[in-house]
């Protein structure tokens, strides 16, 4: 009897653990936010240099009480579908805890209607095509609604960001110098050995 009770309790706990780990689905979210971003269609921005302005607010066509539960908002940079092709680490998944579409947070702040934010694009953002999506969270930290700058198929209004290449003259120079040293020392040894052999012969 007691073991049966223990089993039921532990099963219940496991189920709760599942929901604690955010088993929320993207398809269950309502698209209630209207989001706009400064980049125009197909514009190319530079990571670490250019800045981006995003504005978000409740969709005008919805009633005023819809956003009562929204306590905070996160606005993210998300990969466009053609930047996800053949790249499993950017895969879209309906399970929000496993979804890898939106990997860069532009801003994270308490929710208020009709807010905006301007900030520089982080220098670690890689070269790809993007759109902007905003998630609204309730007081428990769960996603409850979203809005994005593109359509449902993620085809329109996409822009590009050019990442920093990381190549620098100093690294190139160091690399060439070390390589030259490596080759010169190899041939140096050849010459020394040949000379020693010639001396040993004579």
């Amino acid at each position: 009897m007691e073991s049966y009770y223990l089993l039921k309790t532990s099963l219940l706990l496991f189920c709760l653990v599942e929901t604690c780990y955010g088993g929320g689905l993207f398809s269950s979210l309502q698209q209630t936010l209207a989001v706009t971003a400064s980049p125009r269609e197909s514009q190319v921005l530079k990571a670490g240099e250019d800045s981006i302005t995003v504005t978000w607010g409740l969709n005008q066509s919805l009633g005023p009480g819809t956003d009562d539960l929204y306590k905070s908002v996160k606005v993210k940079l998300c990969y466009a579908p053609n930047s996800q092709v053949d790249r499993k680490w950017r895969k879209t998944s309906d399970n929000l805890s496993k979804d890898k579409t939106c990997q860069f947070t532009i801003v994270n702040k308490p929710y208020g209607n009709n807010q905006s934010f301007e900030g520089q694009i982080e220098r670690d953002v890689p070269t790809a095509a993007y759109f902007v999506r905003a998630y609204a969270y309730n007081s428990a930290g769960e996603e409850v609604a979203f809005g994005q700058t593109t359509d449902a198929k993620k085809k329109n209004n996409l822009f590009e960001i050019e990442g920093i290449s990381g190549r620098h003259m100093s690294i190139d120079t160091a690399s060439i110098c070390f390589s030259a040293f490596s080759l010169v020392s190899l041939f140096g040894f050849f010459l020394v050995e040949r000379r020693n052999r010639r001396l040993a012969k004579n």
Partner: protein
Amino acid sequence: MEVPSKTQPLFSIPVDSDHKATEFKPFDLSSPHMRAFHLAWFSLFSCFFSTFSIPPLLPIIRDDLNLSDTDVGNAGIASFAGSIFSRLAMGPACDLVGPRMASATLSLLTAPVVFSVAFISSPQAFILLRFLIGFSLANFVSSQFWMSSMFSSCVVGRANGVAAGWANVGSGLAQVVMPLLYTLIMRFNVQSSMAWRIAFIVPPIFQAATGLMVLAFGQDLPDGNYKHRRRTSKEPKQKVFDVLFNGLKNYRGWILGLTYGFCFGVELTTDNIIAEYFYDRFNVNMDMAGLIAATFGMANCVSRPTGGVVSDEMGKRFGIRGRLWSLWLVQTVAGLLCVLLGRVNSLWGSILVMCSFSLFVQAASGLTFGVVPFVSKRSLGVISGMTGSGGTVGAVVTQLLLFSGSNKFSTQTGISLMGLTMLLCTLPITLIYFPQWGGMFCGPSIEPDSINDDYYLLV
């Protein structure tokens, strides 16, 4: 012990009539034999470190260079394909110019390739680079050749096993060190894509340094270097093609190449896929996945030498038959564990099976090179090259067929299928037969006294 005379050198280690060491003393540096051992394993360690320095930083590199999964898979295959040709070429090169010159030249010529990581900015350049860096793995052949030239048959398995085992640790250590280096460089407020390029300056400096040490402190044979021996030796000068054909027509070289492809080749493939497997299937984080992958590689420190020691012990008691039986047995158990690895569904169960698998598959590699020195004395380099090259062919084939991303089955099914192929491709060991020592199922057919020049005496 050799009787000291004016013309014969004294060694601080017991030697046989060929001046090859009959004991293996890893902490003694005074004899040329042990110096050669340390130089061989250390330079090969640096080559493994360079080759496997890229996989742990892939999550950053793939975004920076805009690589796709296909590009990453192709680069992984290219890194092994490069070493197929170089290992085949290294065999005859060792026979010709000696292991010291051959291995140092390779280390010093491939170091600039690793330095060029600083320049790459496209997927094609990345794939080409991994192909060229893979050439450095040919130093495996030169290290095994060098050990077989310095150590007598009673300890050659041990020497080969320890040298290759300690060197293979480089592949595991790279998985831990490179991310740490990258994080350390970023602490100086260096941007991410500059930081990884700077981190790649370290492996080739290490590689070039070991190449120079081999040139400065190493010698090919107990009595001196190859060029010196050629002039004073009474042996007939071997033509290159004689040596090559003699090796190529020996069927045992081909069989060992195949079986090595399915112990060492499988080990290389697992090095490439295991971190991602644990990350994707069991949702561990990147650091934990890297640590698990590193554990697999670093087990080489003990498991491969154990294979070599087992081979020598079995050789002492049962001759070549013992070496062949132990090789077949250990590799078969490794195959069974590989099949099991793909079937286990829990994280800790998988880790446990993976650890056992690593022990057996790496011991099988050590046991293989307990047999190779006995196949041909004249064409030792060619046979070592064929076997070593077979290892990487196995890696390329398993990666292409089972883990290339275009497959319909999951990674865990691929792992089990890999285990099944291992079981099948280990069977040819039963076909290896030495007329004067026998094979797995048959005894010797000729008297040991009537051997010809092609075979060793098993002392």
